[in-house]
């Protein structure tokens, strides 16, 4: 897989060689993408939100959602103890029911990667690390790259980088592109998630442009947000990014993952996102290799819903574990 991933990344880069030849060429390419009508996009996301997912479909969706969680702690107050607890939870989300799927990954700061790695060792749960001066990304490139190399050296399986929103909003797309390429290089075999901080990009046109920019530069995943600003993942911005990966695959044959992060707290919300995936990108993305939720409190709500489906009764917050 790693070598193939690299081969496809460079194939993608050469496919867009003309578009990325200069700042102005890249600008022309990105501004030539079809515009997004905000009202229509939000209406479509809302309409898909009315799908009624019941019984067997709900059970499937809940287990799938659990298996797609990047269980996250990104606090200044994170300690080895906290990270070990998170790792244990990722491996056995519901100690009362061992058939519960594991989460996809735990997501931590680079200095916690080694601890996280130990906590999930042998379980198949991946360790993802935010890097590149997360969440603001305001640091020199070599500092960002050192941050990435540090996380990779500690054993991170996945790197969640932030783009330089300042450069993007100033129209310096090539700088953003080059930075993603450099981080991809530094990530080695780790899969790269590129965070746009959609709340700061603000417009849907910008989100579509950023999605293509990230995919052309070699992102393995495109991710909405850091969870650290006012507006994080929404059904509409995730729908738009799902359209982008769908179109990118149709054009290049390369499949890219999507990760909405921040603000998804209830099972009901998670199921709505899975409906978006199913009816936009399609069944190929219904797998934690291609779709993730960046979340923490979501997991307990999913577990309570799962218990309800199994027993017919609502349990309560004391029947699931605090992280």
């Amino acid at each position: 897989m790693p070598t193939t991933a690299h081969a496809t990344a460079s194939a993608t880069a050469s496919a867009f060689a003309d578009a990325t030849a200069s700042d102005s060429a890249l600008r022309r390419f990105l501004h030539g993408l079809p515009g997004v009508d905000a009202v229509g996009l939000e209406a479509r996301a809302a309409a898909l939100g009315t799908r009624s997912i019941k019984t067997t479909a709900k059970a499937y969706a809940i287990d799938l959602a659990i298996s797609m969680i990047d269980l996250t702690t990104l606090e200044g107050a994170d300690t080895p103890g906290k990270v070990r607890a998170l790792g244990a939870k990722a491996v056995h989300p519901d100690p009362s029911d061992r058939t519960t799927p594991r989460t996809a990954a735990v997501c931590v700061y680079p200095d916690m990667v080694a601890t996280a790695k130990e906590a999930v060792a042998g379980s198949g749960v991946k360790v993802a690390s935010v890097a590149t001066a997360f969440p603001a990304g305001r640091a020199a490139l070599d500092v960002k790259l050192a941050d990435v190399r540090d996380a990779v050296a500690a054993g991170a399986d996945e790197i969640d980088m932030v783009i330089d929103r300042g450069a993007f909003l100033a129209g310096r797309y090539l700088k953003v592109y080059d930075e993603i390429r450099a981080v991809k290089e530094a990530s080695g075999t780790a899969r790269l998630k590129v965070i746009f901080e959609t709340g700061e990009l603000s417009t849907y046109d910008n989100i579509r442009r950023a999605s293509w920019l990230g995919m052309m530069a070699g992102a393995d995943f495109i991710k909405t947000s850091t969870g650290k600003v006012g507006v994080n993942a929404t059904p509409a911005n995730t729908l738009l990014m799902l359209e982008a990966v769908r179109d990118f695959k149709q054009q290049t044959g390369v499949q890219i993952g999507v990760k909405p992060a921040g603000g998804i707290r209830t099972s009901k919300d998670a199921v709505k996102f899975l409906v978006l995936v199913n009816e936009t990108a399609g069944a190929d993305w219904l797998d934690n290799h291609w779709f993730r939720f960046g979340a923490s409190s979501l997991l307990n709500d999913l577990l309570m819903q799962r218990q309800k489906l199994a027993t017919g009764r609502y349990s309560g917050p004391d029947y699931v574990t605090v992280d």
Partner: protein
Amino acid sequence: MADKTETLNNPFEYAPAPESRSVVDIAPSYGLFIDGEFTEAADGKVFKTVSPATEEVLSEVAQAGAADVDRAVKAARKAFVKWSALPGAERAKYLFRIARIIQERSRELAVLETLDNGKPIKETRDADLPLVAAHFFYYAGWADKLDHAGYGANPQPLGVAGQVIPWNFPLLMLAWKIAPALATGNTVVLKPAETTPLSALFFADICRQAGLPKGVVNILPGYGDTGAAIVAHDDVNKVAFTGSTAVGKEIARTVAGTDKKLTLELGGKGANIVFDDAPIDQAVEGIVSGIFFNQGQVCCAGSRLLVQESVQDELLDSLKRRLGTLRLGDPLDKNTDIGAINSAEQLARITALAETGEAEGAERWSAPCELPTSGYWFAPTLFTNVTQAHTVARDEIFGPVLSVLTFRTPEEAVAKANNSQYGLSAGIWTEKGSRILAVADRLRAGVVWANTFNKFDPTSPFGGYKESGFGREGGRHGLEAYLDV
């Protein structure tokens, strides 16, 4: 289409999510609603109404004849004296009450409408019923403000309004007819379509529940001859009809030479124009809702897609992929996108026109789709390689059939869009605001949507150019049809 072969590969198969039928209690038989009472037809005639999704008989309904029409018009005439003399604020109270009862009973009415019409519960729940209530609320607000509607001081009602409505939006078309008529002080005799009489009869019950004075609203189920008798009745002052252009012409001939005021809302062949700088994903959604909303049985449907030739392939690929995700089936299932065709007769008409399209050389395409074995069903269908000369580009199909034509320049788009006997609706898709304004200005259509389609609001006037009819319904303009001005 999300059919069985595809769902085998897709692990995320939506389990059935049917809306409960138990919220609605359909009686085995219904009478005519005349002078505040349900009564049998004078000649005792009845007809059956069926669920188009299953062909199950839902109820047996009295069929109004000429004698019943006469009785209903007399009741309406008698009621008119007091009703028209009420202060507007008093009439408004009844309309507000009706609007609130509709909201309270909206789940029941949505299920009823879905059963009798065949359209998906998603649509009756999220479109029909909210719009019905909104229409009554809106015109309730006008009842005491008619002095300020722009028709001079104290504008007068016309008298008895004879109203004939279609089966595609049974309760919504009733609201479009009855709300402005009552707000302005008229009384009504309304005939629902023979395939969808039930929601109008439930509305009769709502009138009783609201304490509406007897005779103000009379409901006469029946066939075309019942409608013809209403239209021809000497003591009817106003005729309002929504339906086919052929019947509209007949009605116009009937009322010619009388002093009856007439409004007609007839057929359409709406052009949905997609420019190369359109927001493609949203345009695809707009095309889908433009022609597949209510199985395309919408007079203002965007049944002609005019796409700029340079983006045709890209757009059609996206559109076909999208049609593959539409879910056709049980209209009561909350996840159903496409329901049943309203009647065997309509299905035959759609089928025949689609066959004509093929025979004339247009290329037919449908997503793979399994149709239920009972009931009336037609798979969402596209025709490409269509020109202005094809029947499917000219005739109203009134079904889930989209004809795709291309254009090169805005001038050509406008010329083709206007080259139709109809002029009810049109859509423009472009990210360029100046183009929206320039093109909309030149389209001869009663409603032009920009970067959206099939959006309705009671405040917005609706009506046609050319053979799509005349007169406006909705908004302040909708008052004129019911006032002596």
